[in-house]
């Protein structure tokens, strides 16, 4: 888009268009391009290629603003709680995390906290079996707080290095489900006697502006430590994470790029920004 072009208003508009089409949202797209206009003026940028480079820098700066990798393990068990709307990729992401920790020789325990959806417990059970990790599960319809309670105590009793808790998908507008989530989180905190190491919000890369509502309301229910962006192997650009960084200070820690347990990567702001324009 920028090769051989001169820097004029139509170029700024086209760059804004690219950002909007990547799901950055109008607010964040305008924010980035306004910043770009300022810098173009201050730095007297006349080459379009230079402009693109500056926009990349802006995007990376925004993405790295609150960025951090997964928390370094301190106390055992290292506890991760995974939350998000229906179908985002929570259960699959947990399988990927379990694999990653197993590769690091950690003793992993999974907890089937989705006691509602048909086949949810079995789904995590298949992953546990494939990865040869233990699973704490009750029956379908059980109280998810009870599962969480048992899972933390089992992790302590068994000397697990890592405990990953799955939760049922829920739309953020369901007040009772969001308070259920807050309750499960409190139970884990209490049984652990400290904060969780990670509370990850799983966001589907195909999601549009609704991700902002997801980020805002899930953050009100539980203290989110980061985002796992899934399905980036599709054609969606996942630009919503720029809006999440810009408006909610939420940072991406992990990226899902497929349906198998190896398909998990650490978030890299630079390659993400480059791919968005690619």
């Amino acid at each position, binding site marked *: 888009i920028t090769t051989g072009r001169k820097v004029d208003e139509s170029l700024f508009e086209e760059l804004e*268009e690219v950002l*909007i*089409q*990547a*799901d950055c*949202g*109008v607010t964040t797209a305008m924010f980035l391009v306004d910043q770009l206009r300022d810098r173009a003026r201050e730095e007297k940028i006349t080459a379009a290629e230079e402009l693109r480079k500056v926009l990349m820098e802006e995007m990376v700066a925004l993405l790295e603003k609150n960025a951090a990798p997964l928390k370094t393990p301190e106390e055992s068990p290292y506890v991760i709680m995974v939350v998000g*709307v*229906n*179908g*985002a*990729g929570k259960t699959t992401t947990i399988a990927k995390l379990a694999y990653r920790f197993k590769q690091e020789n950690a003793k992993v325990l999974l907890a089937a906290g989705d006691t*509602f*959806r*048909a*086949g*949810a417990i*079995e*789904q995590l*059970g*298949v*992953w546990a079996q*494939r990865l040869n990790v233990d699973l704490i599960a009750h029956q379908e319809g059980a109280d998810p707080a009870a599962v969480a309670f048992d899972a933390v105590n089992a992790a302590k009793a068994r000397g697990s290095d890592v405990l990953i808790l799955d939760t049922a998908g829920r*739309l*953020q*507008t*369901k007040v009772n489900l969001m308070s259920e989530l807050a309750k499960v989180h409190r139970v884990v905190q209490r049984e652990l006697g400290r904060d969780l190491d990670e509370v990850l919000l799983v966001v*589907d890369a*195909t*999601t*549009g*502006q*609704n*991700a902002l*509502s997801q980020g805002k309301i899930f953050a009100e229910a539980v203290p989110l430590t980061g985002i796992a962006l899934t*399905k980036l*192997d*599709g*054609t*969606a*650009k996942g630009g*919503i994470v720029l809006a999440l960084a810009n408006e909610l200070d939420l940072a991406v820690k992990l990226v899902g790029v497929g*349906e198998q347990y190896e398909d998990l990567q650490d978030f890299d702001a630079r390659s993400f920004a480059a791919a968005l324009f690619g």
Partner: protein
Amino acid sequence: NLSSRLQETMRKLRGKGRLSEKDVDQALREIRLALLEADVNYKVVRDFIGQVKERATGHEVLSSLTPGQQVIRIVNDELTKLMGGTQAKLTLSSRPPSVLMMVGLQGAGKTTTAGKLARMLKGQGHRPLLVACDIYRPAAIKQLQVLGEQLEIPVFSMGEQNPVDIAKAALSHAQKFNNDVVLIDTAGRLHVDEELMEELVQIKAAVNPSEILLVVDAMTGQDAVNVAESFNTRLELGGIILTKLDGDARGGAALSVKAVTGKPIKYIGVSEKMDGLEPFYPDRMASRILG
């Protein structure tokens, strides 16, 4: 909301005397913003605004005492028209069993929707058969079986065999056991996964569905057009089902998908439960999108 923002814009403009085409452009800019914030695809918005502009700069707006209201009414009108009428009717074959296929991206809600449709069909006096053609996702077959049990609707499964063979066997089973509608649940897949898209083409060729339904998550953003276009080009869709409308997603994907495929949105998913299926009403969707 858009209505009040537009009133405000128009009020300021009105203060200048008679409304000009340039003033209406300003109102259309607000509309454009609202549509983009609602996740309508960028190009679809551009085409739509272009389409609406002619009517919006006509006599009915420029001479109105409440031009803001007029513009919104026109936009709402045009949006509703664009999204088609209410077509909450599945295309069944005149010679049963009819085959319906659920297709779409990962996690869109296909399996859940298959259960909902089966329940609806049973309630209408049909004898549906659910078919487990997702052989990849862990416990996908189990998920469908649990739904079938809850609904007291039979589920045909052959475990992890070739989905094309499963579909064919399910059709014979339906003929033998007098099921008049066969609902095939397929695995979620990316529209850019050549191999898996070809699998759908093969299932279609093997069992000749009377309708292929694309299941789309209502929170889908700009990518909705790419997905819908690919699935439609490869399979010739019969209709679309938009899920998770019980959330607060504005659902602009509805407009994008309709605009790019021309195919009707037939139903919407409004809960995780099996009775959470409703007909699609374009006028309600239009207001929701405009916000």
